[in-house]
């Protein structure tokens, strides 16, 4: 995914207070990328831009190449055809789960259309099967257990699998390891790396855990910094 000349500011006025100015960055397809930066520096804003979740009063100009297609902003918004391919796993992943339902029921619920119908709620239609089977095996998940009885790592993984139930080419994860112990944190990142390869998706992860980044980034770590002029830059580390 190549982001070219991304400029963003929170209001559409003539002020020169750009948050991002002419940002160009390349993320390698089928890989996991880590994005670091101090709290409040703009990691969430960057994700919100890619999701198309920014305020309509904002100014946004960008061109994004994804899977050999070019998407350009129109009227300060990225086109739906792009943003529909981008899915997010929030830091508070429990917001994405129906706790009383089992792992499999949750996955199936995430797969439903915009207007659920009177069709029988049946299993076996879930997407991203590779990711699902891989994760279930790696985390020894009992798929018939209600989600509230799963561990934090297992619920985090459930949220990731659920996010992948709609066609996804870019997956954004906000601090997926923040509430996990080291063992579970490493297992989550291992799973993400496999998902990126097997499902052909570009994954961006915000992470404050230096140990995780050092172990798994392999040259794919970036840092958002605020320059003297106030603009944010997104630079590849090293």
């Amino acid at each position: 995914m190549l982001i070219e000349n991304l400029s963003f500011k929170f209001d559409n006025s003539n002020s020169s207070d750009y948050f991002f100015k002419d940002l160009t960055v390349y993320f390698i397809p089928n890989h996991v990328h880590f994005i670091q930066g101090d709290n409040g520096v703009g990691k969430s804003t960057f994700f919100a831009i890619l999701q198309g979740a920014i305020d309509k009063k904002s100014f946004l100009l960008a061109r994004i190449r994804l899977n050999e297609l070019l998407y350009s902003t129109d009227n300060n918004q990225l086109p739906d055809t792009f943003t529909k391919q981008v899915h997010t796993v929030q830091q508070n992943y429990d917001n994405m789960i129906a706790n009383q339902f089992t792992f499999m029921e949750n996955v199936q619920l995430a797969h439903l259309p915009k207007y659920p119908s009177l069709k029988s709620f049946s299993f076996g239609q879930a997407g991203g099967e590779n990711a699902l089977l891989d994760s279930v095996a790696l985390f020894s998940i009992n798929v018939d257990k209600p989600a509230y009885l799963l561990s934090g790592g297992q619920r985090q993984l459930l949220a990731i699998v659920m996010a992948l139930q709609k066609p996804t080419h870019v997956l954004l994860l906000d601090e997926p390891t923040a509430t996990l112990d080291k063992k579970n944190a490493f297992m989550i990142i291992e799973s993400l790396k496999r998902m990126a390869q097997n499902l052909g998706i570009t994954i961006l992860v915000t992470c404050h855990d230096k140990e995780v980044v050092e172990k798994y980034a392999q040259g794919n770590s970036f840092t958002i910094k605020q320059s003297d002029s106030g603009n944010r830059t997104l630079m590849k580390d090293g």
Partner: protein
Amino acid sequence: MINTLLVIIEQSMLHLPLMFGAYISFSLLKIPDLSIESAYVVGAIFGSYVLMGTSNLPLIGILCIVVAASCVGGALVGIVSSLLTQKGKFAHLLSSIVTSGLFHGINQFICPAYVSLNKMDNPLTLVNVVAQHPELIMLVIIGFAVFITIYFLLKTEIGYCYAAYGNNPQFFKNYEISTSFVFITGVILANALAGMSGYLFAQSNSFVELNMGVGKGLLCITALMLGKGLTFIKKSFSIIVPLVGTCAYFTVQQLLLKIGFNLKYFTAVQAIIVLLLLIYTHYNKPIRSPNDGLGL
């Protein structure tokens, strides 16, 4: 004894649609849907007014039309309260109180305080087998039809979504599923069922009275808590809960009558039952348990 049993069955069947409606809103969607009390009355009014205009039809035709009309009446209340919540962005408790006030005023305007149905055809006597309870068979048939319908509905995509909404109202926005659609259809369905019960009750008692919905919310809460307490269901939802709850509620009521209890104090008994069940649930809650919303 047999007669008491028949009364319990008859009362349970009269209230079964209301209980399924309350189950959808209170237990599945987990919302304080007080508008079911209004839907109950509006359903009774719609059904009764349509009944007055269908006297020349065969009883089966009358039955189908008036039951459909009562559902429409109840659904109308659901449409208003759910739209207020979803489009007006009010808390549903506020929306349902405002809706109740609105429809209470409209009811006063369109309907006298008391409407007798004595001179009308009674479509509930279509199959009259038990002499002392001429409406019993039809009520059981209607109750069974509603049970089967809700049973299959809860196995559908939208049925699961009602329970998922109650579990986590933020759930759907993460997956491009319309939260409004799930919420609005759920509330409309719940209120339509309450409307049907309102008509059945009015027909069975041969009158419509504008305050007949008062206390139905507490009735539903009591019955649902009894149903949940008696069934020990571990699944995320089960249609058995409202069925068992309704029967248990009217069994308790009839037993109290048997020992000479004055039913005008029964709301106090309901409140005590709810309180005891809440205290029991609170102190016996497992350490790891999901948020149970209204506790129903």
